[in-house]
């Protein structure tokens, strides 16, 4: 049984701690062993050599009783390296904690010093854009774990983490959760504080849970959700107890199935698994109907204008003045200020980062602002209106999380546009600001995970948990583990 302890969920471990069968320090111990055992293959974590896995916090009166949590490398932790897996933030140790970290510590969690791998600055859908190299999918080490929270998803899937935080701007929690057969939730925009999240696209980013099952996600959301006076975009409304939403009954729930998500481009095995999942939901008492989200095809272009525009501005601060990497002056020349900026940013940013910054700068530049940025903001309104219309009649929307299962490392990296299109099912939720969850719903013949995505109207995470839990508890997928 001791061998299996690392496979347990957070809520199972909490039970064991309560029964005094285990301590949080022992949990850290077997996690460390597991990481040592498999991370050389999976590479879910970064800078392992630089950090010491610390002792657990052990307050038994607290909610989380010292259980460790793994954090994506773009969430600030006071005194611990936070580098967004980028060269330009080399050595950066924030002098403050992100609000979610403060909340986790207050709830008694042990925040691991090891950070999980990610696409640099969250720019990517495969974790191949990390300065530290790609993470591998625990279900097939030749394939990507998804991105940009690939490290968090792989760590949870490989039981190298009890649970983890990821971030989602265009699908970066849901898609890797899908590729790695874990649960991943993107909260409603404004539900979780962004203070301390190193920004990619300020109007789209959210921090969310990546977990082994739905109950863990609900438990984690209870801790991290809530108003933060330090974040002007955080909503001041009470956080319900999401654990209360975990009933197994979804009789009468009205589910919308948007036809645009099942057209060409979707892998046949993925389609089959998702359709089977929808049938299961019907068996459980839900009613389904086909609907149309007419502006779906415009979501990706809208996203790549708005997100890159905001990113180009958010990343301007990386200029080697206060912290991080600074390029050395070229041989024999004294470097002036502009050269320092240009060389630092030219050398410090990876290819995808440079591509997005240039695209975003272009979209905002004089003469193009109206045609690109402003136009994108208007089409975003149309996309939001599509969802508003559906939610007037339906409780939730169900779609595949991704058109394909995990692809091979190197397969899409040379074709940026192809990579962008793999976000097609997840992006709209960020643009509309609505919550969305991905849960495992099967495997392909090659034993690659398939994910089911459920979307609900703003601040209705309870419904997501309810439907997700009902499905999960009536299917075997959440009990599967990769063969590492």
């Amino acid at each position: 049984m001791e061998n299996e302890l690392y496979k347990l969920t957070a809520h199972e471990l909490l039970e064991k701690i309560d029964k005094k069968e285990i301590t949080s320090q022992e949990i850290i111990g077997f996690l460390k062993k597991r990481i040592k055992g498999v991370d050389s293959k999976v590479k879910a974590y970064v800078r392992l050599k630089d950090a010491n896995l610390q002792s657990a916090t052990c307050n038994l009166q607290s909610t989380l009783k010292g259980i460790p949590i793994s954090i994506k490398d773009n969430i600030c932790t006071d005194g611990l390296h936070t580098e967004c897996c980028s060269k330009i933030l080399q050595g950066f140790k924030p002098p403050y904690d992100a609000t979610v970290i403060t909340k986790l510590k207050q709830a008694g969690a042990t925040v691991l010093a090891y950070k999980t791998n990610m696409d640099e600055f969250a720019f990517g859908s495969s974790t191949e854009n990390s300065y530290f190299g790609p993470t591998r999918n625990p279900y097939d080490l030749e394939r990507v774990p998804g991105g940009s929270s690939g490290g968090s998803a792989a760590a949870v899937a490989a039981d190298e983490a009890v649970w983890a935080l990821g971030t989602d701007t265009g699908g970066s929690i849901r898609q890797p959760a899908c590729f790695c057969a874990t649960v991943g939730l993107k909260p409603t925009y404004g539900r979780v504080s962004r203070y301390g999240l190193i920004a990619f696209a300020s109007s789209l980013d959210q921090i969310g849970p990546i977990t082994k099952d739905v109950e863990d996600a609900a438990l984690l959301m209870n801790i991290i959700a809530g108003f933060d006076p330090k974040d002007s975009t955080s909503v001041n409304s009470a956080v319900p107890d999401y654990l209360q939403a975990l009933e197994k009954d979804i009789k009468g729930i009205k589910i919308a199935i948007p036809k645009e998500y099942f057209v060409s481009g979707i892998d046949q095995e993925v389609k089959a698994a998702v359709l089977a999942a929808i049938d299961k939901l019907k068996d459980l008492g839900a009613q389904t109907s086909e609907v149309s989200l007419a502006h779906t095809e415009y979501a990706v272009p809208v996203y790549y204008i708005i997100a890159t525009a905001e990113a180009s501005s958010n990343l301007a601060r990386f200029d080697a003045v206060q912290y991080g990497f600074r390029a050395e002056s070229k041989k024999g020349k004294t470097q002036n200020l502009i050269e320092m900026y240009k060389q630092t940013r030219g050398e410090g940013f990876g290819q995808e980062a440079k591509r997005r910054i240039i695209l975003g700068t272009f979209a905002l530049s004089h003469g193009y602002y109206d045609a690109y940025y402003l136009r994108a903001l208007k089409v975003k309104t149309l996309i939001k209106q599509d969802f508003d219309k559906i939610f007037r009649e339906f409780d939730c929307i169900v779609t595949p999380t991704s058109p394909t299962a995990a692809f091979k490392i190197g397969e899409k990296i040379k074709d940026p546009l192809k990579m962008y299109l793999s976000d097609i099912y997840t992006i709209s939720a960020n643009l509309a600001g609505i919550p969305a969850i991905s849960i495992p719903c099967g495997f392909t013949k090659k034993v690659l995970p398939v994910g089911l995505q459920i979307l609900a109207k703003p601040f209705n995470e309870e419904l997501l948990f309810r439907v997700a839990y009902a499905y999960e508890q009536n299917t075997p997928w959440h009990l599967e583990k990769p063969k590492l």
Partner: protein
Amino acid sequence: MYEVVIGLEVHVHLKTKTKAFCGCSTEFGQEPNSQVCPVCLGLPGCLPVLNKIALDYAIKVALSLNCKVQEYTKFDRKNYFYPDLPKNYQISQYDLPIARDGFLNIDLEDKVKRVGIRRVHLEEDAGKLIHQQDSSLVDFNRAGIPLLEIVSEPDINSPQETHEYLTILKSVIEYLEVSDCDMEKGSLRCDANISIRKKGAQELGVKTELKNMNSFKAVKDALSFEVERQTELLNKDKPIIQETRLWDARELKTVSMRIKEEAQDYRYFPDPDLTAFIINEAQIEEIKKTIPELPQGKMSRFIKDYGLSKYDAKILVSLKNNADYAEDCIKAYPNKDKKPIVNWLIGPLLSEANNRNCSLSELKIPGGKQELLKLVESAQAGKISHLMAKSVLNESIDSGIPCLTIIENKNLFQISDSGSLDNIVEEVVKENAKSVADYKQGKTNALMFMVGRVMRKTSGRANPKVVCEILKRRLTDA
């Protein structure tokens, strides 16, 4: 032949306790990089939250400048790279500023001129950059301090009018107590745009932007220099280049910045980290209530209610503390003709205040305004000479002894009755035979000389007018 067209951009630091978007102190002159936090340093992951008082102050100024406060206002990012800008963008306002379309009336010699105010908006200040030999040093204490930018219409037509505008603008803002408006401390900065065109022409000439002027005088001098420079160019049929020029306070000239004019593309877009702000009527009314009587209104009232001259009223209202103190004195002065007390306020009182680097209300006159009025009345009644009264005032403030007490103790009362003076006059006549002779020969200087002798003998206490009359009678007799 030519008309000068000037527009001004004035930035004032708002005197809030904390910065625009974070809780760091705004106190001036602290150790470098000691008043900073993740937000104003622009550290990764930080987020701004707007200071309520900064918004209130901005609305207060806008209303005082007769502007239309916008119901819906938002913040935009102004993107450019510079080491004193921690995020390499400034949170500012672009197309929906807090207020627009106001005006400020300025006094010209013969009329009142209305200068339009195009817009008033809120933004954050950058840090401070110190240039050294081989590097530059950055101090972020100032980064994030709330700035109000006030942009005028190009309605100003001379350096002198510019000076008037700045003086009145500063006065209004000081009355509102929302800024120190101190150019030396950097809490007021001014950039100017100037162009010249043939009189009667409709189109504006090519404009030059002027920066680096550190006082109102420098602004006036820089503009005067530019008027000359541009006039000369036009006269020689040479073109005027659109550029930014810096005022060189040592060489007393403007110098081209010589930066490649890559038109700055600021790529403004709405800041996604801040919500929009809706300002409703109720809030505007609340803030209106906190606006005191403003200098120009007060000036008109002083002229009307107390019969002050425009010149005198203008001096008294220039500082709010002075105006309030002055009004109290004027009201308490018993006579209907207020000229005497006004003269005292504008003359000796302001002089004392200036010498001591304080305002009228800060002058520590023992016995307060009551004692001051008694002094003025005594001087008016001739009980003490004006000259003596001035020096008593000075001594009183220095020593802490009330004026009238000093006068009594030192027996400084003016001697005006002939009884006391006759003997002394007689002495002087006897001692100055030559002067007497001179006077009899028609040299009136000699009379004043002898009056002076009497003043000497009485330690300045003799009433010079009376002495003069006694002397004249005496010399006619003899």
